[in-house]
């Protein structure tokens, strides 16, 4: 039985297409200071640091080096620091890293920091293209949007999901981000507006795609001894994990069924003793870089049957006020500082459990789910947070 661990503090930064007011360390300092303030601790109280970012989006290789001291003076104080980098799941993997630092019994208070400055990259797709194997596939100009488009086209073909369904997901997230002062895109629109927006990679419209954002996030994990002293209502980690699919996109049915996510979800629900996720989860922060992915995620996470994901949106099940609100923050669709996005999902889920989500708070949250995906659709992370310790 691992030691019990809780989140006791969260720090977010305002995200935008280009935070030109701050240098990289200054951006990280903003998130870390906010988290330390939230937990009401000083930098010396941090026992260890986990840093996550997806190199090389920022034009700086290994930015945790330049930013080391923004992480609660980690370098000046010779603290233990570990850098984690797993693409889009970096934020989720870093949160897992923080969790294991504390669960090991070696550390009591661990700061997890993630950041990304996609705004400093002039051509994000070109960077994403570098994830693709240079021997076989890089020459084809494949990037994230093309992959998302293939997912949408397949799901539409197999299950009859429509462009309107995708637009509804976009509208729902944008309605939500209006309540989130840290979100990047904060404007509402209608389904008609969405369908009229230009097509980037059929069937994805501009409205179906995440922005490129600058932003940082910090989350503080604490041991069961320290947590109650640091937060009125800690967000306890009930279960958490990751799954690694292989690199080759052609090997699997990810376009229709996100099977690796389904496998991870089964493992996590078993650990958390969740039998009916739709009923037992009160809010979910999912990682949807493209609107179609939210629909695929509903199915893989067992919120509905395969192929029925669009129905949940049509019926308002996942809207604020619905049975299982998804992304009160506006999700990745409204804010995507890639290496930080997975941690922002954890942070937002924690805020919901801690009752500190302000205007985007869902009432009476006991259990929240945070998700991230990355790589060539092959990596997923999940974390279940709860008001009660497991």
């Amino acid at each position, binding site marked *: 039985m691992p030691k019990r661990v809780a989140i006791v503090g969260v720090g977010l930064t305002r995200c935008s297409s*280009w*935070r*030109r*007011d*701050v*240098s*990289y*360390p*200054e951006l990280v*300092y903003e998130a870390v*200071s906010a988290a330390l303030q939230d937990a009401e601790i*000083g*930098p010396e109280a941090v026992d260890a640091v986990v840093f996550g970012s997806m190199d*090389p989006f*920022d*034009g*700086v290789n290994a930015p945790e080096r330049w930013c*080391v*001291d*923004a992480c*609660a*003076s980690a*370098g*000046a*104080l010779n603290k233990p620091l570990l850098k984690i980098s797993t693409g889009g799941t970096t934020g989720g993997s870093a949160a897992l890293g923080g969790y294991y630092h504390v669960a090991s019994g070696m550390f009591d208070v661990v700061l997890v920091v993630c950041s990304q*400055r996609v*705004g*400093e*990259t*002039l*051509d994000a797709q*070109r*960077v994403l293209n*570098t994830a693709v194997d*240079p*021997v076989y596939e*890089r020459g084809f100009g494949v990037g994230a949007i093309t992959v998302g488009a293939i997912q949408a086209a397949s799901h539409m073909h197999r299950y009859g999901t429509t462009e309107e369904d995708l637009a509804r997901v976009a509208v729902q997230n944008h309605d939500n981000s209006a309540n989130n002062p840290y979100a990047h895109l904060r404007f509402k629109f209608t389904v008609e507006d969405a369908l009229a927006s230009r097509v980037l990679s059929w069937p994805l419209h501009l409205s179906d795609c995440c922005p490129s954002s600058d932003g940082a996030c910090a989350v503080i994990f604490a041991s069961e001894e320290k947590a109650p002293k640091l937060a009125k209502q800690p967000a306890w980690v009930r279960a958490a994990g990751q799954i690694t699919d292989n690199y080759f996109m052609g090997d699997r049915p990810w376009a229709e069924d996100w099977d690796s996510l389904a496998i991870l979800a089964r493992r996590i629900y078993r650990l958390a003793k969740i039998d009916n996720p739709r009923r037992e989860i009160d809010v979910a922060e999912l990682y949807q870089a493209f609107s179609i992915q939210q629909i695929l995620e509903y199915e893989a996470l067992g919120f509905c049957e395969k192929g029925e994901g669009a129905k949940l949106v049509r019926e308002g099940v996942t809207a604020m006020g619905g049975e299982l609100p998804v992304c009160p923050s506006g999700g990745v669709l409204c804010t995507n500082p890639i290496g930080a996005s997975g941690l922002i999902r954890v942070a937002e889920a924690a805020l919901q459990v801690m009752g500190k989500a302000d205007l985007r708070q869902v009432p009476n949250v006991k259990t929240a789910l945070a998700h991230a995906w990355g790589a060539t659709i092959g990596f997923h992370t999940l974390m279940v947070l709860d008001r009660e310790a497991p």
Partner: protein
Amino acid sequence: MTTEQEEPLIVEGRWDIPYRHTAGKAASRFLRELKENKRIVGIRCPKCRRVLVPPRSFCERCFVATDEWVPLPDRGTLDTFTIIYEQFLGMPPPPYCVGMIKLEGADTSLMHYVSGVDMSDLEKGKQNIRVGMKLQAEWKDEREGRISDILYFKPV
């Protein structure tokens, strides 16, 4: 069909990715002072009182914001250095000397080139560049707001 005897292939790759870097509060002021006022400024931490150069928005030891700017003379002492004799791919052509220079009044040292001496071979280099030597900045006439507005530091 066998691939045993075939020569394995090497596939070249190159990343050519443009960026636009945000200097932020502290570096922007420093670089502007180089360009407009032909001077070097440091920043003082309100808690430990160190004068930090290059300046930074927060003190890494105290983890507090900094905002007290301190103009510094463009003279200092060489704390440590190295002379590069090897041509690395994508790096400047040798020989060149990089050192850490403690400006008068600063508590931290600044990385910059040391030049204006003969370092064409190692023996001459070792003779002409020594830890503790006094240096003076050599400035560009047309400055752009970059660290290279100082061309190098030369012996006084």
